[in-house]
């Protein structure tokens, strides 16, 4: 996943009709990058047969 530019972030916020200042975007950007970066080591996992665990019922064994 590529890093989001500030311009792209501004567009995303705008398309959601949310007003975020430039200063705020600068503060948020590294936090977003950190979250995505933390996921990166997991992207090599074999997930072919794995469905997302969204709203789920816990398994009863």
């Amino acid at each position, binding site marked *: 996943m590529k890093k989001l530019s500030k311009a792209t972030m501004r567009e995303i*916020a705008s398309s959601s009709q949310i007003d975020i200042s430039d200063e705020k975007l600068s503060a948020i950007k590294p936090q977003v990058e950190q979250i995505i970066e933390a996921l990166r080591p997991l992207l090599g996992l074999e997930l072919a047969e794995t469905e997302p*665990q969204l709203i789920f019922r*816990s398994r009863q064994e």
Partner: protein
Amino acid sequence: VDASVLHMATIKDLSQHIARKDLSPVEITEAILARIDATDTSLGSYITVLAESALRSAHAAEQEIQQGRYRGPLHGVPIAVKDLVWTKGVVTTCASSILKDYIPSEDATIIKRFRDSGAVLLGKLNMHEFAFGVTGETSAFGPCRNPWDLNRLPGGSSSGSGVAVAAGLAYGAIGTDTGGSIRIPASLCGTVGLKATYGRVSRYGVIPLSWSFDHVGPLARSVEDAALLLNSIAGHDQLDPSSAEVSVPEFDKGLSDNLRGVRLGIPREFFFENITAEVKSAVTSAIDRMSDLGAQIQEVSIPLLDHTVAIWNTCVLPEATAYHLNHLRTHPELYTPEVRERLELGLFIPAVAYATAQRIRRKLSEQVYEVFRNVDIIIGPTTPSSAPKAGGEEVLVGETKQDARISMGYLTRVANLTGIPSISLPCGFSSHGMPIGMQLMAKSFDESTAIRTAHAYEKATTWHEHHPELSDTTRD
């Protein structure tokens, strides 16, 4: 029950006296309302105290009991709920200015169930704004303070629930837990906190943080009390699409003093690496004690545990932002800056990252269930340290200093990611005199094994018998 410590009685003890008619629900309620009035200014555990309606409920309970219509162990017992639970005609704020005037037109399912049990609702408890934080410092109604030391954090997000139970301002309380928000305040305030299996307790009428992670559950002063509270609220609810249609046992039955045959699994690589020496020592001693009680101990490995924070963040942030989108558009200035920024962050998590994290989450669940083939309980500390000082204290965990406000949730999130039940209970005190908690996790819908194991340990120790002295609550 000694009148001078009546406020610290367990629900179990109190209910036996109420059933025998030697304690009056009206007098008990009057006494606890007076205690809230006298002490809660410094603690900040309540947002709304429902004195009049509580007394009306207590009078009704007393009348029914006098007439021989005793409903069970919660009848006439004063409890309180986190202020994100709908209460008909009563303001439900989520500790936010956004909802400061929000009055639901109906009760949440759990409130209806408590009313059916005859419980007395004392009021609505303070919390981290919109349940989005683990400290309890961030609330439109002021911070909540730890009754063991007013300078230290109570933990959150169910901060008022932990504080009210620990300080004797309610006999039991309800919290919610998306990443540890029942168990963290339980750990830092020295109470029991029980997050049941995902789907076990209805969330209808409970304002969400993150749909696929949210759980509702009790905080109490004993394991048995937590079981009694869970008895009242567990069970299928057609109004909640995530509610599970499974049988509900009586969680307080079958408790014993020994742990013969119980297999405990210890995931050392994650739970025991980044914690303080005091927490490590307390939980290790607790495991030794459980071994003495007959438990079989073995080490287990869950490779994806190291990544629980990454998976949790990627899933929870967009879910929370999706729920708050309308308020973020119309009244962003009414959020506290901390919670607003967290919600804005969720806008920028790519959908592919969200879906991928949800798939990895299922992998984690598979690894956890593999471990449960060989053990009944997974055990570890609830929080990496005891309660840190308010205002951003760094705590030495392992070999690194960490911002305690962030690290408090590291160890609890696995149970939200997998939906398994987890109970936190006291297992010691720090050198500062602050409680230390450990958590016991079991297979989905096997709360009974977690409760039975926690109860046996509790009966063999005295940690739960210690209570804060509210007259001297600043230590160092």
